[in-house]
């Protein structure tokens, strides 16, 4: 044996080694430093601020930041993000595109092969495509304005970096609005004078002290307050705990108006007022009808603070074109709540101090403007707007809204706009007759139907002919609706560039993919307590950028270098100098009110805490003096009837709130015969949108057979022979997906939930192929709420489901660009 | 002990009086003022270099 081996090896690589064997990968080490247990560092995330122990160049352990008394278990998913095998490790270019550029076979996009390139080559390609677009077409051909939930940290805010660098090159198409609150933020300025959806709300202590009833309208506080826009410290939960106690002591009633039993309701042990999906407006109209007929509403308040009630009344009383009086009996047939219960509900909320807290889900549906408007009308009729513990809010479930503000200034951000716009390389501002800004959710329409004119918020928009899209820290293949429609659109795009740290579906459908590092591989700083401005936290780099990833700052500095404007981009400052600058600016801004230590001390300590703020009541100033403290509406008053909207002449959003039938609706509504189940795609309980779905170990704590859970009603499931834990095929005419059944009494008949943010994982790139993991946007429809907001209507979605019996395909999400065999 | 008390020079009552007066009227007051002054300077320098202007 040993002889044959000798003879076999003989002469094998004797002289040829040099040609076939490359240089070694190991070197003699310098004197090694001896770490004992590692060091603790401070950082944070949307899921919570934390301290992390780093040892041997690796994040070993994560524990909640001490200010956070109510940390979420999502902190357990952090390591799974950093060390995910789904990390983008190198700059990659789609092979087909690399060979053929804009003439590449785009139908292969999303299921194609990539090759690794150097950073230099990747940036050169990126730049040359921007250049080609500006010269061959014009600014209208590039859409580089789609941004979403970045990672936390003010210096590296990914959208700012992308916007700044690309604006230094030329003009591009931009967006207005966002996917979460598109309808709400458009309608509310007409009604209450601000966007409302991101506004600070009445402080919780005042609510706890004064409210007798709290109505949670499609609002799951406990679920949604787990995540925050900045490094979250969960201050609201202290008050939810107190609220729970008050409910137990029968001091406060909390009623959830919701088609499903919420996490909040389970936690608070509060009441549930079931309502058929998408029928909030009929219920509200019937409440208004009761208040009017029983003469319970606050006439004085309406007279002093509101306009247009008399223009709305005829509709309520059935004296307009539709000739339908909005009685509780009328509403009962639609919303599924008994007429007497509606009356009782109306009497309850008008009797004592009532705080209405509206969630965002009800405006993420067709005609989503209407329930928001009508809720404001109800609050006006109750007459408690501006009183502590009364009135209406649209954001108490978001970040730290309702936690009183300290008034401290937070750190600013890396500048989004170029310092010297006059040095822009391409000065061409000619959009060729197209609009330069489009409603956020209409970009797919733009690609598919360029030149089409649509109405939006009083303007006419001409959809631009987009040829190239650039995304950074943005995953539209999660947040946009109707995947198969998106695939069609992507067939038309010439070039797609994505900057991200993980292989999202968006990256897999891109041509140039640039690896950013995660937020824990860079130095930064952030606010904690987005609305309370509780303090400033250092985000100390835990480990160096893994593989060939770079910080957003570095990546777009490289692009700026290509433009010959590196210095203008960075202002000659390094990452750490920017952190210091933002901190020092913040010290300056807070000079009057708050003493802050110098930067060195701050960085060492890891945070500055501003303490607690003073309680505050929303709209109290307006109530006190509506003339000086006028609302931002056209009239300065609450507009029950908006002449301005009325003047637009829109069909689906008229002069006052109205009930419109939906294109699809359960419980006897349109399309429910074929697809009887309403699919709710709300914000996830164990993620931030699609962020953290790639954290495998944590994901496995909630998946069913490796799939995203679909929450089903026991009756519905039984009827279809489905048991808890079964694989379910969910489908409609737009698409199909596989999900894992979780049968729960919280879900009523005809109602199912798949949380949005589940990663898209089609069997293959073909149109219509099944999503193997369970992304609900495979099924949702890509239609606007109305001509007013042109916002997403994700929650107007009917489906059917069945037990899955075929050969089970493997989950294709969470992987890089590979062919599905 | 008393054996060792062989001071040739007697300090008489007057010299004790003198010493007493020098101590109480001149030296100690001067020392106190100097000490308080030094304390004051100390605080001031601390304020200049370490603590910043006096807070609450």
């Amino acid at each position, binding site marked *: 044996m040993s002889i044959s081996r000798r003879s076999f090896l003989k002469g094998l690589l004797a002289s040829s080694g040099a040609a076939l064997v490359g240089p070694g990968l190991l070197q003699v080490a310098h004197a090694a430093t001896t770490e004992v247990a590692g060091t603790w560092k401070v950082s944070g995330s949307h899921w919570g601020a934390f301290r992390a122990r780093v040892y041997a160049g690796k994040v070993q352990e994560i524990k909640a930041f001490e200010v956070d008394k109510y940390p979420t278990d999502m902190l357990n998913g952090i390591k799974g993000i950093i060390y995910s095998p789904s990390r983008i490790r190198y700059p990659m270019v789609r092979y087909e595109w690399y060979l053929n550029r804009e003439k590449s076979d785009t139908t292969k996009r999303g299921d194609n092969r990539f090759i690794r390139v150097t950073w230099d080559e990747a940036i050169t390609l990126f730049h040359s495509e921007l250049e080609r677009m500006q010269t061959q077409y014009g600014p209208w051909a590039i859409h580089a304005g789609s941004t979403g939930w970045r990672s936390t940290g003010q210096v590296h805010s990914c959208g700012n970096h992308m916007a700044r660098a690309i604006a230094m090159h030329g003009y591009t198409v931009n967006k207005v609005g966002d996917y979460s609150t598109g309808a709400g933020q458009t309608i509310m300025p007409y009604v209450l004078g601000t966007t409302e959806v991101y506004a600070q709300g009445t402080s919780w202590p005042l609510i706890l002290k004064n409210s007798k009833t709290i109505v949670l309208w499609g609002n799951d506080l406990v679920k949604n307050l787990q995540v925050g826009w900045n490094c979250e410290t969960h201050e609201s939960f202290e008050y939810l705990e107190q609220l729970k106690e008050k409910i137990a002591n029968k001091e406060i009633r909390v009623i959830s108006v919701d088609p499903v039993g919420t996490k909040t309701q389970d936690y608070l042990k509060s009441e549930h007022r079931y309502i058929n999906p998408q029928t909030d407006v009929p219920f509200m109209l019937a409440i208004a009808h009761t208040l009017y007929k029983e003469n319970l509403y606050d006439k004085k308040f309406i007279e002093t603070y509101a306009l247009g009630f008399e223009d709305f009344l005829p509709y309520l009383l059935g004296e307009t074109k539709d000739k339908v009086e909005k009685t509780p009996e009328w509403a009962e047939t639609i919303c599924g709540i008994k007429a007497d219960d509606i009356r009782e509900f109306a009497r309850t909320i008008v009797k004592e101090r009532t705080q209405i807290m509206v969630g965002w889900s009800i405006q993420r549906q067709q005609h989503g403007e209407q329930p928001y408007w009508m809720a404001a009308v109800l609050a006006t009729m109750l007459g408690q707007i501006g009183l502590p513990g009364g009135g209406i809010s649209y954001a108490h479930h978001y970040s730290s809204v309702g936690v009183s503000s300290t008034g401290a200034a937070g750190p600013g951000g890396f500048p989004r*706009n170029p310092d010297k716009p006059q040095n822009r390389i391409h000065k061409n501002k000619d959009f060729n007759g197209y609009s330069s800004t489009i409603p956020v959710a209409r970009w797919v329409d733009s690609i598919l139907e360029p030149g089409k004119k649509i109405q939006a918020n009083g303007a006419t928009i001409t959809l631009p002919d987009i040829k190239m899209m650039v995304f950074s820290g943005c995953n539209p293949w999660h947040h946009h609706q109707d995947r198969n429609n998106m695939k069609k659109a992507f067939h038309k795009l010439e070039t797609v560039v994505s900057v991200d740290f993980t292989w999202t579906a968006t990256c897999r459908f891109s041509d140039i993919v640039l690896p950013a590092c995660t937020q824990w591989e860079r130095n930064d700083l952030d606010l904690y307590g987005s609305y309370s401005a509780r303090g400033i936290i250092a985000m100390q780099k835990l480990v160096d950028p893994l593989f060939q990833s770079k910080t957003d700052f570095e990546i777009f500095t490289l692009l700026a270098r290509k433009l010959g404007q590196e210095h203008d981009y960075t202002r000659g400052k390094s990452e750490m100098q920017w952190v210091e600058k933002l901190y020092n600016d913040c010290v300056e801004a807070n000079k*009057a*009110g708050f003493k802050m230590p110098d930067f060195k001390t701050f960085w060492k300590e890891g945070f500055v805490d501003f303490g607690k703020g003073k309680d505050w009541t929303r709209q109290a100033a307006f109530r006190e003096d509506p003339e000086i403290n006028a609302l931002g509406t*056209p009239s300065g008053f609450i507009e029950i009837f908006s002449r301005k909207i009325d003047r637009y002449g829109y069909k689906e959003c008229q002069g006052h709130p109205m009930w419109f039938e939906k294109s699809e609706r359960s419980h006897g509504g349109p399309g429910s015969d074929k697809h009887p189940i309403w699919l709710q795609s709300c914000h996830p309980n164990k993620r931030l949108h699609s962020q953290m779905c790639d954290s495998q170990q944590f994901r496995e704590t909630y998946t069913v057979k490796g799939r995203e859970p679909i929450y089903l009603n026991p009756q519905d499931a039984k009827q279809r022979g489905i048991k808890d834990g079964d694989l379910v095929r969910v489908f409609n005419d737009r698409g199909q997906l596989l999900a894992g059944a979780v049968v729960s009494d919280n879900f009523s008949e005809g109602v199912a939930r798949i949380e949005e943010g589940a990663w898209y994982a089609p069997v293959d790139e073909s149109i219509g192929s099944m999503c193997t993991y369970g992304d609900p946007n495979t099924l949702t429809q890509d239609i606007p709420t109305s001509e007013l907001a042109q916002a997403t209507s994700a929650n107007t979605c009917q489906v059917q489901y069945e037990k899955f019996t075929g050969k089970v395909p493997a989950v294709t999400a969470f992987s890089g660009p590979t062919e599905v065999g | 002990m008393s054996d060792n008390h062989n001071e040739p020079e007697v*300090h008489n009552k007057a010299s004790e009086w003198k*010493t007493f007066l020098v101590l109480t009227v001149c030296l100690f*007051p001067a020392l106190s003022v100097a000490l308080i002054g030094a304390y004051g300077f100390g605080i001031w320098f601390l304020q200049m270099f370490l603590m910043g*202007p006096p807070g609450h």
Partner: protein
Amino acid sequence: MIQIIKRFWHIASKPSVHLSFGFLTIGGFLAGIIFWGGFNTALEVTNTEKFCIGCHEMADNVYVELQETVHWQNRSGVRATCPDCHVPHNWSDKIARKMQASKEVWATVFGTVNTREKFLAKRGELAQHEWDRFSANNSMECKNCHNYESMDFEIMSERAQVQMKMAAERDQSCVDCHKGIAHNLPDNMNSGEGTLSKLEEMATSGYKAGNSYYSVRQLPLFTDETMTTEAGQLNAATKVTVLAVEGDAIQVELDVWRKTKGFGRVMFEDFAMNINDGYLTKEVAQSDDYMNKGETKIDDLTGLPWQKVEVKLWARNGSLTESRDTLWTFAKSTYDTSCSVCHTQPAENHFDTNTWPGMFNGMLSFVNLDGDTQALVLKYLQKHSSDFSDEAH
């Protein structure tokens, strides 16, 4: 000499032979009391205004300036003396301050600020020391007499109410806003720090009757040239015509519109455009003494009646500029920087004039702008909104 000290030490270090233990203790104790009394008396003497103005640097500069202010003479007859504001009351800090005065002694001896010119040149630095101290102790010396808890906001002017309530909420340091309340401000500083002074720098002077100007910031309005009764507030970047200049006071005319629902207190730049030009007190708004009423029209978009008025009121001589261009430049850069931290700021002409207030208010919780800047930026956005822009959008 050495002999004397030796001898002294010899006596002092030995037990007393002639003086009793009781005498020494009581004698030392009494001497201590007398010393301490004397020390404090001396300290108090240095803590009097008389002592402070013993040096002509104080007497001829800050002291005479104080005499012009309300801290010298007022209707309630309470006055503040130098040490009330400038000497810390805490013992350690007070002693430290006294020692610090060695600098002042030095200055007197060497004549560092012995002329008015020298003093003025150094005023900025000297003032800054005091401001730092006030900002560190949160204006404790002011609050010894004026404290937020005891303020009756109701009897303040409306403008003051807004500002004071905001300050009270944060227990803000008084001197943040009230610099120059007892002495003149340094020359290079008009009225404060930060944006306010930036705005003030844009103001011109030497207004001529009959010409039109724009306010650089929010300004109080008064009923007459004595400027004792507040009549309302002028908003930033508001056009006024100067009618008369009377020393420190100027009479201005505003050509504005108002809604007639309520008291008609808010003034707008144009019919049916919610571009705020300021507001009037209830009394002034309801009175015919200060305005000529013009035509009344119904705004179709809200159904509210609007009335054209020419308002004639008085303001302090200052804080006006000839053109809005510099104000707009400042507002634009503020908007571009502050409002792009979270997202790309919408183009100015993306919304119309009456939509901007709502959109702008919605963003305000995320930016750090003071009241004057907020008002200015909003007006800038409104004046560059789709109603005024030719560019198709």
